[in-house]
């Protein structure tokens, strides 16, 4: 795919852990070989549980953690390799929205100043024109220009997330990385922010990398989705395929664990139930990382790591028990 705006290849982020004078240094393999493309104007979602590496992937794309290996390209810019001033200059092309709108705004700075600061840092517009730009950003995100004078504590959670969005958009980015952007919000407010994000995407042609643990939010927002488990993408497919025809046993387990009130959804009893917690990302199992909790594991799952491969058009899965024709062999067993 050449039309990808963001292209991530074999991204690895390993955090060193302690390690004594004699003992070998061990590593937390937070992200361990992740690849994906996001076409311009689309939304790529990463879903997974805590510790799966989804947030670290987001931070790596933002160049906010040190990358161990791999490459990342944003259009023509090699954002994985740039450093220093070159990196700072290109940062205006990719911006981030964090989870907690209470922690991501400076409580001592007026909302308008937070926007102006972003405009100044990214050198957007003429200095004299910036206040007007800030007003426009506020209107665009559903805030009132007179609220530019207020401090963060005078806004509700949903409004703060609008400020955070306005600030991210100040740089006129191509890519917005959203790490659990609505997880801290009430469900009624979530809907407001999700609708706003979709409208902004349409109006400004934004591309989103969207991280969430909430399957409902992911399903609503994303065109294509990668399911992460212990630092790797175990299944990746367009939204329709992934939700209508999940293939990886972990995806199935995740789907069946999510409470749903849709009529016709599975009842609680006939579900795949996972036991225990994911293994430690320091001592990663040698075979499939999910094998220890997988109800369908065979001996080779414990010894041989499965590769992510395309089994249906656009639908990739890393599981020995899915046939090359995209059939879940474990179903017949």
């Amino acid at each position, binding site marked *: 795919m050449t039309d990808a705006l963001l292209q991530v290849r074999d991204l690895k982020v390993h955090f060193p852990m302690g390690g004594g004078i004699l003992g070998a240094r061990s590593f937390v393999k937070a992200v361990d070989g992740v690849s994906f493309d996001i076409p311009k104007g689309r939304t790529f979602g990463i879903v997974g*549980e*805590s510790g799966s590496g989804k947030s670290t992937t987001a931070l790596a794309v933002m160049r906010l953690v040190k990358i161990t290996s791999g490459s990342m390209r944003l259009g023509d810019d090699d954002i994985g390799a740039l450093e220093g001033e070159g990196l700072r200059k290109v940062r205006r092309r990719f911006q981030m929205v964090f989870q907690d709108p209470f922690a991501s705004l400076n409580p001592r700075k007026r909302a308008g100043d937070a926007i102006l600061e972003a405009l100044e840092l990214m050198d957007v517009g003429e200095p004299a024109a910036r206040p007007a730009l800030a007003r426009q950003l506020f209107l665009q995100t559903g805030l009132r220009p007179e609220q530019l004078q207020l401090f963060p504590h005078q806004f*509700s959670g*949903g409004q703060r997330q609008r400020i955070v969005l306005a600030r991210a958009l100040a740089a006129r980015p191509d890519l917005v990385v959203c790490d659990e952007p609505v997880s801290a919000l*009430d*469900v*009624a*407010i*979530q*809907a*407001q922010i*999700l*609708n706003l994000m*979709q*409208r902004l995407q349409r109006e400004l042609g934004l591309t989103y990398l969207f991280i969430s*643990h*909430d*399957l*409902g*939010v*992911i*399903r*609503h*927002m994303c065109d294509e989705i990668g399911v992460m488990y212990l630092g790797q993408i175990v299944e990746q497919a367009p*939204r329709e395929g992934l939700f209508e025809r999940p293939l990886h046993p972990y995806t199935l*387990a*995740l789907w*069946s*664990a*999510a*409470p*749903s*009130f*849709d*009529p*016709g959804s599975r009842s*609680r009893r006939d*579900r795949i*139930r*996972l*036991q*225990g*917690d994911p293994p430690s990302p320091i001592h990663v199992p040698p075979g499939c990382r999910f094998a220890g909790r997988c109800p369908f594991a065979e001996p080779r799952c414990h010894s041989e790591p499965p590769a992510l491969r395309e089994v249906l058009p656009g639908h990739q899965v890393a599981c020995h028990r899915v046939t090359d024709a995209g059939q879940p062999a474990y179903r017949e067993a």
Partner: protein
Amino acid sequence: MTTPIVSPALLDVSNLGVEFQTRGGVARVLEEVAFQVHRGETLGLVGESGCGKSMTALAMMRLIPTPPGRITSGRVVLDGKDLLALDEPAMRHHRGNRISMIFQEPMTSLNPAYTVGNQIGEAVRLHQGLDRKAATTCAIDMLEAVGIPAAKARVHDYPHQFSGGMRQRVMIAMALACKPDVLIADEPTTALDVTVQAQIFDLISDLRERTGTAVVLITHDMGAIAEMADRVAVMYAGRIVEEGSVAEVLQAPLHPYTRGLIACAPGRRTTGFGEPLTEIPGTVPSLLERRGGCAFADRCSDVQPRCRTHLPAETRIDAGRRRVLCWLHAEEKRETSS
């Protein structure tokens, strides 16, 4: 369906009112909250933050910080005894023994300085007069019951040695150690991953079936209500605005707020891709801003002039099994779905 003539409820909350003295004035946090829970039944309390769900739980446990808070009215009758009328020693005998609670944050509600065995055993030592040894045995049994592997060894571990899901299991073991009649679970899985949440829900359901404990499940997640609860009470701005069986309320919500809560959930099959979600405009009004009339009026799509001035009387439907607090369904409009 049960027969209309039912045994008296195990837990009967009526006319519960709580207010807080604040610098800005008196905030009426709960008003006329009433519901019943039967043995072995799960009642879901659902609503946005600030609607009074957790306050209802704290009031039932008599854990409202006083001052500034105060229970102004009502009764919380557990098995024939009004908890609000008890003196503190008698209440202490009930709390954790006959009515107990699981809190939202398993990380902060366990004491890091004591072993989990000690903390689970404390309840039975205090309430049932067991000695340390017997209490430890009981703690091991409880840890086994909530599915903690190698309970015998882990009973001497400290909270930090457990994962989040395990800690919530420890909390549940603690809450259930005295085999309470009523278990209040306040957002028990909010901090947990979905696969762990599913484990905890299974655990609560199994324990409820085994022991007949009545459960009050507090959550903001309609999906969790659909999975876990028999009946659901929807709270808004300190009042219960709708109550009924989960199937009825989810399929045919009567109150516009309930309808909004259900419709705004993302990712349902019924919403087409790219379609915007239904929004509930605005936010929950501040407790001090509340005027006469329905608190939801400003956000309601079906608002009428009288909604802003007068609160409707509660309408009971289907032989009293269902109730709603809304002018749309008051008096003349009694013939709704069915």
